[in-house]
């Protein structure tokens, strides 16, 4: 351009540049939504006998919600009668196990670890794996896997491959405990904020 820049253009660009520079100094690489399992009603220890909070399913704009129940295997008791797998209030069947499952979507898989002694199945170990294709993060199992029977190994987590990273996460707006907040992605990878 032959006539160059006007003074007002220079002022505007300088202003924009200074503001941008200030922000760039404190900017993070990537920021994602994460659930703090210590605050989440479903996984918070001590919150027993309260209603299961299913807002992660109801509020999320993704059809099957981007939240999943996750079993932290290192904390799982691997019980024979898992209170999150079975509906422990249902009638006991012939095999001595509760007849109903707790998960409304049948998303928990139960398989024995090693050989099961038919005379003493209760003392065998069982592995509980959550089928993420079926789970929608309703939190029923999370609430069940706590005192008095469970060890609190199941927590709710945001799946970063499913989450569309809304600027205005609808779950965070509705969450009664403000348990879902934005964190730098590096910490999401390390799981710093998600250790129960």
């Amino acid at each position, binding site marked *: 351009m032959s006539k160059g820049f006007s003074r007002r253009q220079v002022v505007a660009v300088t202003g924009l540049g200074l503001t941008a520079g200030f922000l760039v100094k404190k900017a993070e*690489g990537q920021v994602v939504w994460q659930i703090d399992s210590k605050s989440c009603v479903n996984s918070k220890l001590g919150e027993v006998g309260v209603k299961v909070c299913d807002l992660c399913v109801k509020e999320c*704009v993704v059809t099957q919600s981007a939240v999943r129940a996750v079993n932290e295997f290192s904390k799982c008791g691997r019980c024979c009668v898992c209170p999150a797998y079975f509906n*422990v209030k249902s009638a006991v069947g012939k095999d001595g196990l509760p007849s109903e499952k707790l998960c409304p979507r049948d998303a928990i898989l139960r398989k024995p670890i090693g050989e099961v002694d038919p005379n003493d199945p209760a003392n065998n170990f069982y592995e509980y794996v959550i089928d993420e294709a079926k789970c929608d993060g309703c939190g029923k199992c999370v609430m069940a896997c706590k005192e*008095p029977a469970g060890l609190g190994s199941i927590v709710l987590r945001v799946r*970063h491959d499913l989450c569309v990273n809304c600027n205005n996460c609808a779950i965070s707006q509705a969450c009664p405990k403000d348990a879902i907040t*934005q964190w730098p992605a590096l910490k999401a990878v390390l799981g710093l904020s998600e250790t129960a």
Partner: protein
Amino acid sequence: MSRLWAVVALLCALTGSVWAQALPYERPVDRAPQEKSIGGGYKTPDVQKPLPRKGWLEITDVVLLAAAMGVSVWIVVKRRNRRWLMALSATSVAYFGFYREGCVCPIGSIQNVTVALTDGHYHIPMVVTATFFLPLLVAVFYGRAFCGGVCALGSLQELVLIRPVQVPKKLDRALGWLKYVYLLAAIGFAVLPLAQRDFVICRFDPFVSLFRRSGFAHMLALGAAFLVLGMFVGRPYCRYLCPYGGLLAWFSRLSSRGVSITPNKELDCGLCTDACPYGAIEKMRAVRANCLYCARCYEACPREGPLVQLRGQA
């Protein structure tokens, strides 16, 4: 008395839940058994941790945003061709809209920038910062090039506008103030403390639900309503509600180049004024603040075309 009943009820409930646990456990179930105590060479499975989107893909978005604005300026200033701009619009709707599902967009980034400037603890990603500033920077020199064929929301409305009607000047001007009210409201909700903070622009974005093909029924209905209205009234969201459009209008007042109406060979026929669905041509000149880079005026001009290539020198 009622407290007693509550205790009794709670005890019953607890017994009920523990009852099925009355199996003869010998191993401790109050702590998790580890690999050693399980034995048999058992390995604890890894807990799956899906990673967020790859960093270089996020950077690609910013590069594409900058490139698309460059193309938009080139089409409007050099090519002066509407068909090319339609192609750019369709590409932007496909990429920024349906593929990226409407995020990150400069409109919503107003709120992130506001919070980042006022709250020291807020984490603003680099990509959001760049997305906010790039279109403003372009506006200082070339006007609202972002609105033209780049913004997914604007491009979508541009593509559905098939029977444009002229909005009466006074009404147009009055409604145009709404976007500044909305901008102030959005900033007001964003500067609230964390617990009450609300990103209203994103919450009431009429098209993001369409781009995601999911969302609340009322937002999908609002998006559809805007598109139906947008078939006749040119870009209702952009002109009357878009808070970022308000910012762009301020900055584009300074711009020296952009859509230019036949600088030296005009007929004063006024066909361009009639063709502009946004009321952005006044006295045969494009008003930078309102011009949305749609290039309809070029299409309507009898002097434009492959034989009469008029280069903007205004």
